[in-house]
């Protein structure tokens, strides 16, 4: 099992959701995060004082899938949400040892 953890532009949420559903992943978890990377933030003036807003609003989406599904999901998303502009986001693939579906107590791939 692998967890695909993606940091995306908030407006790409719906696109990601569709792809995740199409690929047949069992679910997803979304959190509101702030991030910086190549996209370095912006300078604004608040009451005459310059302030750098260098953490931008992003969404983190986590999807745990069976090993075999990981690559195709990564590719589909990578293509689906690419604009080519800085700030498109990143994906990290993280090994997962096991998963449990609480409702049934099932473990392993079947729990996803």
């Amino acid at each position, binding site marked *: 099992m692998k967890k695909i953890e993606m940091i995306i532009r*908030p*407006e790409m*949420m719906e696109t990601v959701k569709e792809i995740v559903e199409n690929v047949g992943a069992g679910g997803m978890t979304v959190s*509101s995060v702030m991030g910086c990377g190549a996209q370095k933030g*912006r300078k*604004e*003036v*608040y009451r005459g004082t310059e302030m750098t*807003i260098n953490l931008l*609003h992003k969404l983190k989406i986590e999807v745990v899938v069976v090993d075999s599904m990981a690559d195709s999901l990564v590719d589909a998303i990578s293509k689906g949400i690419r604009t080519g502009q800085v700030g498109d986001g990143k994906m990290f693939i993280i090994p997962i040892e096991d998963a449990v579906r609480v409702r049934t107590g099932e473990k392993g791939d079947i729990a996803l």
Partner: protein
Amino acid sequence: MELDVTVLTEQLDTLWMLVAAVLVFFMQAGFAMVEAGFTRAKNASNIIMKNLMDFAIGSFLFFVVGYGMMYGKDIAGLIGGSQFIMPSDAPVAILFQTVFCATAATIVSGAMAERTKFVSYVIYSAVISAIIYPIAGHWLWGGGWLYQLGMIDFAGSTLVHSVGGWAALVGAAMLGPRIGKYKADGTPNAIPGHNITIGALGVFILWFGWFGFNPGSTLALDVSIGHIAMTTNLSAALGAITVMTISWVKYGKPDVSMTLNGALGGLVAITAGCASVSMWGAIAIGVIAGFVIVFGVEFVERKLKIDDPVGAISVHGLCGVAGTLSVGLFATAEVGELTGMGQINGLFYGGGFGQLAVQAIGVVSYMAWTLATAFILFKIIKSTIGLRVSKEEEIMGLDLGEHGTEGYADFVLKM
């Protein structure tokens, strides 16, 4: 001590006009809260700023040119032509008219919310306060041709609210919908407001202020303010009850934000006839407004495909029309005598179609005037500096884009 009756009367009228004007002023806060609450968090500061500048710029321009165009010496029943720069009427009268003008102007900001360039909005706001509304105002309240024709629009269902509503319609239509408002197949998506509590507070503030708006339009202290306040309240109450009921039946659950709109619709609708109809007339008008709200919001969103985030077109435009026409149906001489509106009976009180026809002429004239002038105005703005912010900015939010600030800096937002 001796009593000078003229002085006393002037004092009393000034007192009442000032109290009423202050209540109407506070409606600016109501509009700001409704519009901010019913839209997204990322645009809240921008909406606030638009409402604030509406009032600030409108106060200045209406004083300098608007008041004169509205109440200056009549030229051909169409426009006023004196009292510019330093109007000579009683200051309290000017103040009262100023806060009305600002109401008409501010209606538009909700319909155009979440995608309009700030600079363009400021220009629109200046023009409506200085020219479009004052000229319209002259026709009726300034003693112009609609006044002579006998149109009844006591506190401005049409003159203030529909004028605002039609300008909102043109603005929102020309802007186009917010990104994400419509699916590819043209069906609408819901974009919920970010703070229903504050939106509801805005509605209560507006209702509160309306007790200055309608009763204050006597322009003098008179016992009829009691009647007017009661009709105003009943119509608002029935507007809310009606929308709650319809939405409950139609959608399965009583819709909160639409019910709040319903109260406002009832207020807008009774504004024309508050001094002409009986309590039960007011109740009927409130019910009518409730229907107009529900079907109006759906019509604007689904048929016209105009994205009006806060329902301003339905609340102010359509309910304004419904209320103004209702005077032609529900006006009763009994009330008219009491309030000084004269012995006019509407269709349902045996007065025939006469008043209704006059009301319709008024409604259509104001609609034509506003659609035309607003169209020209927004067209010019669009083809010069542009009306709409960039796609990137719209996604990021206008608070950051237009003002470099965030409305809720300490809160984690979903989007």
